[in-house]
């Protein structure tokens, strides 16, 4: 569909989470016209997910950190919207960004589930603030109802004020687990234990980085205090290696891990529970970026993230990125990067303090990523019949056959031989696990022609 120059914004920001929101309001402060395109109905992304207005939550901040700063930024967004400087394009799921002769075209499907229609937004420059999704490592029983993503449990609690059970074990690795366990306990769940596959000693190996980030220490201490208040135990160097129950979770087996995350035989303990919230950190969402040709790098946590220069520019001219897309680092860093990108987009020099904060928080992100990076022995807890690809129901045994007997050495070949990664989620959930089983050493940034499902009818419509 043709686009007139008057409809072309100075900037399209994709994603209204901490990075995108900060970038959009700062860019508008600096005089740019902005289209803030987001899949949700309200700003905040996954981090600042909030109950829908109909739920009448008087204190949504009870489920959030740094709510005040977010609320002020959201209020600035409202001012810019009213003044016509920012167009907040809600419930738009972006499936591709393409370079046209004189602008970038942002292609989206619309509606809560992306099933309502199709739309296009034009802009002279693009900022990708696409965030991240949770990394999952499969284990026996993880497809049983009652096993949910740790981030998923958090999202459902924040948005819908619901929990998957009454007695919820939280497991996996990474700092998100502490926040999730704290929220679930504060909301009334009994959380018998948080099970961390790594440990927290890794942070101590970066003492200068820690000392330079006192707010992170305070955050960690706050989580620890919350968990103490609700009597939540923390077990490090351990993992859930089995889930029990026929149609839903009745108990899990907690097993000690060695340094390489191999289960230590004979250490399994059965923990009764009716739900398990599990996750192993976050994976940057890069589909739009890689489709544009942006270069990626390997992060200390084994994920792929965008290569960015000091001004948040990707390797593709005209495309900036901020937040988790440049490497998982949390909301505080995302906000700083969003603001930095906005300064560069407006051709203004940011303050030195902002640059130093970004660098300091990036270093902390690196220490965090290293402390919780999955160790290679995790796959020893898989049984031959453990499903790895949830969509196509492909077991670890079939993937190992493809690798050992048929010579597959990468996710693409495993996919062709077994269908792992070929289903609805397009390998977002099983990707990291399949890559490990295939023996890939470099993380392949997801390459998906469409970043979200689009019907043939919508594609055919012009």
């Amino acid at each position, binding site marked *: 569909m043709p686009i007139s120059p008057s409809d072309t914004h100075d900037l399209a920001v994709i994603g209204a989470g901490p990075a995108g929101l900060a970038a959009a309001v700062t860019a508008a402060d600096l005089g740019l016209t902005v289209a803030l395109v987001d899949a949700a109905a309200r700003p905040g992304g996954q981090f600042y997910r909030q109950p829908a207005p109909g739920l009448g*939550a008087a204190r949504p901040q009870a489920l959030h950190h740094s709510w005040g700063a977010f609320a002020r930024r959201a209020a600035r967004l409202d001012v810019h919207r009213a003044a016509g400087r920012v167009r907040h394009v809600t419930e738009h799921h972006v499936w591709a960004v393409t370079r046209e002769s004189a602008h970038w075209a942002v292609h989206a499907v619309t509606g*809560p589930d992306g099933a309502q229609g199709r739309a296009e937004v034009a802009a002279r420059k693009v900022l990708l603030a696409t965030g991240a999704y949770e990394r999952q490592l499969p284990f026996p029983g993880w497809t049983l109802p009652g096993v949910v993503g740790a981030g998923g449990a958090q999202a459902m609690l924040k948005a819908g004020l*619901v929990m998957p059970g009454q007695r919820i074990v939280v497991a996996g690795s990474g700092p998100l687990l502490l926040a999730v366990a704290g929220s679930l306990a504060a909301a009334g769940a009994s959380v018998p234990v948080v099970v961390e596959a790594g440990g927290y000693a890794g942070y101590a190996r970066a003492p200068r980085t820690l000392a330079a980030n006192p707010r992170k220490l305070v955050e960690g201490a706050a989580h620890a205090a919350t968990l103490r208040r609700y009597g939540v135990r923390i077990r490090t160097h351990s993992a859930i290696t089995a889930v029990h129950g026929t149609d839903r979770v009745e108990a899990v087996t907690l097993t000690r891990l060695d340094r390489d995350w191999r289960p230590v035989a004979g250490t399994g303990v059965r923990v009764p529970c009716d739900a398990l919230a599990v996750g192993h950190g976050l994976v940057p969402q890069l589909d739009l970026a890689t489709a544009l040709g942006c270069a990626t790098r390997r992060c200390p946590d084994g994920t792929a993230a965008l290569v960015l220069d000091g001004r948040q520019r990707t390797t593709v001219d005209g495309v900036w990125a901020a937040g988790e897309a440049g490497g998982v680092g949390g909301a505080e860093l995302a906000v700083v990067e969003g603001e930095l990108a906005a300064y560069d987009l407006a051709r203004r020099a940011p303050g030195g303090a902002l640059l130093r904060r970004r660098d300091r928080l990036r270093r902390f992100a690196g220490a965090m990523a290293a402390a919780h990076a999955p160790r290679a022995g995790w796959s020893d807890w898989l049984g031959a019949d453990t499903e790895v690809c949830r969509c196509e*129901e492909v077991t670890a045994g079939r993937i190992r056959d493809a690798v050992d007997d048929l010579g597959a050495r990468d996710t693409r070949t495993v996919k062709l031989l077994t269908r792992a990664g070929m289903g609805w*989620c397009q390998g977002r959930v099983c990707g990291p696990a399949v890559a490990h089983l295939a023996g890939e050493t470099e993380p392949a940034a997801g390459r998906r022609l469409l970043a979200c499902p689009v019907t043939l009818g919508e594609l055919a419509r012009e």
Partner: protein
Amino acid sequence: MNRRRRRTPAALVRAAPGPAFEITLDGRALSALPGQSIAAALWAAGVLSWRTTRQSGRPRGAFCGIGSCFDCLATVNGVPNQRACLVPARPGDAVTTQEGHGRADLTV
């Protein structure tokens, strides 16, 4: 009797939701609150699965909670493959357990 207010998600954020309404799952009436997704309404009713897999017919429900895993696909008002964690519940919605790809009507 413990008179202290029980900890609940709604109490935590001091929610005063609009009036509850009814949706159905396979004909069974369930209560939903305005603003809740279909998945949230089902969780609130203690329901964790509303789909069976294509190959082995195993039960599935919400997993990632943010629309990226597609495990929570449901048939809502006759339309299959809707992400229950994203689609808001509306009064009178008829959710049916989705079997396999949800397109049995197209089978020849």
